[in-house]
């Protein structure tokens, strides 16, 4: 942490950047809030721990940049997934890489608030403490210890890129050789089920969708000025929470982020009705990985999977 503060102070002092976007402590114990650090004094407000859930790189997209237009050069603190978003933005002409200074940090995973809340059966949490692989949660009249992994976001549990693949400065020790369980186990297990079972599950799950678009709004890869669901010419899909329309919405959204989703899990955290969103997004990720040997946001020089064609691609979906 001290190293981070020191580095940020340094780059602000050197006028290497006009601002550093990072996390500060939120008003609740388990929350972090985005902060814009412009002066050396403010640097002390920076934190980085398991509460730093949000992918701050969305501030870099054109739409959000309007807020921060006065900044010519922006420093930003990035976890693995955040860094991958920056790669995506660079490849997709959303930012110029040279206008951004990336301060990479090794990530141990971030909390999923919904899971924490479940762990303590909805009781108010006042403080927490990490003890190696466990988390000690404190509240009024209680203190509980749980395995840390039970409190982390799902994507963190299988994250293969805890260290920012793209950075200018890396603070701390990279977690390089993390051993991750099979990221696609849930997809493979689901694939084992019969078509009827899968269809029933998808239908039931997605009938819960209230079409609030929180998933889209929080998604770092969703930066279209006007999302297809909001367009009227043509009206691509029905706008009410009718189940087929909702399924189409999610399917198309997943196609739109195919080869672009960095699996930060922001959508999952944001969903008010707890949809199993990753059952689709991970499936798409797996297909992209297997078909095109491509993982979004890991190589700034690689062409996006969905925008390139190579002759020896698998074409098993074509008949004859």
């Amino acid at each position, binding site marked *: 942490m001290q190293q981070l503060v020191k580095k940020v102070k340094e780059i602000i002092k050197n006028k290497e950047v006009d601002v550093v976007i990072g996390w500060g402590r939120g008003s609740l114990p388990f929350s972090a809030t985005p902060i814009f650090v412009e002066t050396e004094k403010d640097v002390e407000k920076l934190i980085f721990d398991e509460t730093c859930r949000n992918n701050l790189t969305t501030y870099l997209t054109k739409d959000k940049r309007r807020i921060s237009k006065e900044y010519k050069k922006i420093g930003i603190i990035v976890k693995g997934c955040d860094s991958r978003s920056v790669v995506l933005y660079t490849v997709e002409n959303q930012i110029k890489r040279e206008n951004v200074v990336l301060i990479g940090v090794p990530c141990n995973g971030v909390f999923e608030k919904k899971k924490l809340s479940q762990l303590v059966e909805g009781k108010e949490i006042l403080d927490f403490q990490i003890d190696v692989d466990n988390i000690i949660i404190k509240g009024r009249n209680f203190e509980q210890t749980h395995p840390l992994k039970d409190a982390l976001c799902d994507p963190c549990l299988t994250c293969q890129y805890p260290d920012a693949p793209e950075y200018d400065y890396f603070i701390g020790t990279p977690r390089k050789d993390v051993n991750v369980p099979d990221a696609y186990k849930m997809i493979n297990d689901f694939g084992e089920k019969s078509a009827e079972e899968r269809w029933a599950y998808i239908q039931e799950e997605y009938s819960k969708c209230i079409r609030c678009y929180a998933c889209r709004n929080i998604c770092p890869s969703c*930066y*279209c000025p006007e999302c*297809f669901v909001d367009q009227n010419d043509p009206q691509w899909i029905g706008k009410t929470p009718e189940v087929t329309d909702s399924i189409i919405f999610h399917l198309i959204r997943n196609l739109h982020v195919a080869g672009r989703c960095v699996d930060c899990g922001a959508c999952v955290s944001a969903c008010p009705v707890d949809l199993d969103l990753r059952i689709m997004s991970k499936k798409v990720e797996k297909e992209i990985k297997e078909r095109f040997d491509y993982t979004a946001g890991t190589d700034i020089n690689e062409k996006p999977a969905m925008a390139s*064609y190579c002759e020896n691609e698998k074409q098993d979906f074509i008949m004859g």
Partner: protein
Amino acid sequence: MSLKSRSVMVVGAGIAGIQASLDLAEMGLDVHLVEESATIGGRMPQLDKTFPTNDCSMCILAPKMSECARHPNITIHIKSSVAEVTGNPGDFTAKIVEHAKYVDPVKCVACGLCEEKCPVKVDDEFDMGLRKRGAISRSFLQSIPSEYTIDEERCLYLTKGVCRICEKVCPAGAINYEDKDIEIELNVGSVILASGIDTFNPIGFGHFGYKRYPNVVTSLDFERMLSASGPFGGHVVRASDNIEPKSIAFIQCVGSRDESIDHNYCSSACCMFAIKEAIIAKEHMKGLDSSIFYMDIRAFGKDFDKYYEKAKGQYGVQFIKSKVSEIRELENGSLSLRHVLENGKIEFTEFDMVVLSVGLQPRENITKLAKKLDIKLNEFGFCRSDTFEPLKTSREGIYVCGAMNGPRDIPESVTTASGAVAEAVKYLRLDRQEIIEKKIPEKDIVGDRPRVGTFVCHCGINIAGVVDVKDVAEYAKDLPNVEHSEDLMYACSQDCMNTIKQRIEEHDLNRIVIAACTPRTHEPLFRDMVSEAGLNPYLFEMANIRDQCSWAHMNEPELATEKSKDLMNMGVAKARELAPLERLPIEINPKALVIGAGLAGMTAAEALADAGHEVFLIEKEAELGGNLRNIYFAFDKDPQELLAEKIKNVTKNKLIQLYKSTQIEKIDGYVGNFITTLKTEKDEQTLEHGIVIIATGAEEHKTKEYLYGKSSRIITQVEFEEMLHTQQFPKQKMKNIVMIQCVGSREEDKMYCSRVCCTKAVKNALTFKKRFPNINIYVAYRDIRTYGFREKYYTELRDLGTMFVHYDLDKKPEVTLVEEWNPDSQLNVTVFDPIIDKEIEVKADLLVLATAIDAKKENIDLGRMLKVSLNTDGMFLEAHVKLRPVDFATDGVFVAGLAHTPKDMDESMTQAKAAASRALTFLNKKAILAEGTICEVNDNRCTGCGYCEQICAYNAIEVDLEKEIAIVNEALCKGCGACVASCRCGALDLRGFSNEQLFSAFDALDMVDILGD
């Protein structure tokens, strides 16, 4: 000043004739395309697939055929022959006879009832006699023109005066037994001959039993058997018992490379043809054993060797280097092949079926035609042309292309066709073409409510016989925005089109839907009609209720009527959303840029300058000539004379500006409007031009194999040729020369044939042998690929007693210096000789390596600048390997010479002329019209992510990094809409096939309960 005309005659309407006609017509010239048969298309329609891409032959040809038929500058004379050509170049008078067709082409609707009822049944020539046709018929389903004609020698009425059935059944009253031959006189400036080729007829040839043994077929018979639209529907069965064969043998060189029948030439295409058939047959029949019996596999064309390797590896086609001497039929109809293996052993192998790879030979009537045209034939009976003038006949002003002057495959025929055009324009008047202004002012309909008029065509009984057209017309009346609906007998007839125009006027219609046949053939016609009625031609939509409804559901009239209503509904729904589209003019700068001043570059520059265009000819080196500078022999000609002449021509021509020692720094722009920055040691300079021809050549492979570089006695063929020229032979007495072929060619990372090395080796060996008859020459080769007429030199060399030793890749020759450190020590070459089945060792006094031709590294940068692709070998990749061999997917850029693929001098020149001719189709226009159906960007929705830019195959869309949005280049967009589908933001749309229009059509389907259930 020679005479010049605006008309030109093309004889023969195969792919070469079609290509020549299209090029000429695009230059604004009046073309008379004279064809003996009843359709254009030639041989290609008979083919099922084409090598090496396995493209469907008809699918790639059909668009060219219909373009040819629709072109306003082309007049097609079918069933016509040339009687004589008199006069002088620039002012020829050609007499042609148009033979009686006995069917009025204006009235015939090609419904086919006549042939169905015709009592005469004769062997169908198109299907190689595997099917019967009537005396009234057409060649094939997609023939152009599509109308039927009567075969007067077979027709019962015309021969015996009885029958007249076709007249009775014809619903259009098109039969005319009184039709007569007519003689037409054409005044033309030049003539292009493209009358094609025949296949060798193997009846009675050798001991192969063609036509005696039912399961022995020719490669062309087999092609029809494989074709899905052929007589067997693509299901190959043996004629003897209708059983699918389990094994097929292909026998190569039937009627080729055979002095006994005066065919001492290679037919060039049959090896690839057989490989293709073997592959396709394996695809059709799982577990089939396809074996090819060959002498040499001559896969010398671009990407051919990769195809050959694929056949061996992926498909498991067997290749047996063995000559078949006899075929015997077994009791079960199978065939026993007696063949001689390389080592002289005789074997008998049994196959279920045998395909004879028949060679190509001059057309039967070529002698007669030659006499009428006063042109000479060569020793093999093909049209005669000179090594360095491969497109000229012996008569000035008459040019030749296609396979008429030598066996050729499709892309080479197309190349020669365009090349011949560049020659022919010498006697033609090229005036730069203006865009033809519209005569009728267009009604402004913006803001008007859609007022749709619907018309349902009976097409005689073709539609009305199945679909209740009155019901469909009635149904359309109730569709939203439909103001008028009616049914018409033949919507495309002149009087019906007048009716439609009248209705547009009466009802103030602003959208037209016609339910009839297919838009692929009739949309252009109806668009013109809509235009004549004062509406924008894009306010028109078709519902295909014939080809895709009445004809496909003949036994279900009610459901076909329901489907027609649906299709009509969709048509109306889409029509409501149609908007007028404009085709923007793109100005064409008449100047040309040619990159590279080797043989191809100089030839192209010369051709363009001769046609009156200013040319910038750029050469990287200080001297002109490229690789030609190192070539000294060409059998009967002197390449150095050719070089001198070319240099003189480009230097003295005032229209050619030469830039030597100059590099291309940058090329911007698009067809008609390129801007190029040149760089020399001293300065930079920019040029503006309309087109680019890439003629950057290739280079000799630098080998380290076979101890090259270790001794002065180990040299390349290029160095050997120089030695022959300078006569600086090694001082010591020579006894043996060894040549090794395929050094750096046809191997893993370079799986292509360098094409010229076999001929070069033969040529150099002959030159040497004639001087030193007592010195032995050994040639270690993999396949000798002296294709075409080059074969005779190979034979000549063999006859002079040269040893040819065949080696395989796994048993390459070995070269050793007895004293490894001593370059002057004895040089030994060891090679395994399969004929004697053991290794032989030769003490070589000279070792000559046939090193490969490599692509230039600079191709990558140039490709990037021009936005054109390279193949995996680094050679420039043309737009289509069969039918657009010198074009690129990017308009206005062309390729010629070695930059495209290894080739010989005559081929480079031909291709250079072809590139020039293709370039002239643009340069000879003051402006071209961009497509109307192109993409557009909604700036407010675009994020500039660049997916579209990467997806677009035509480089027609680019992100403006300043504005952060994508910009469509309207000149380049082909309207495929791939970018539209890639756009997440919905920022892109395709005019004429917009999201809104397509959605409207989808929604219309929602309204109708399909099948009424």
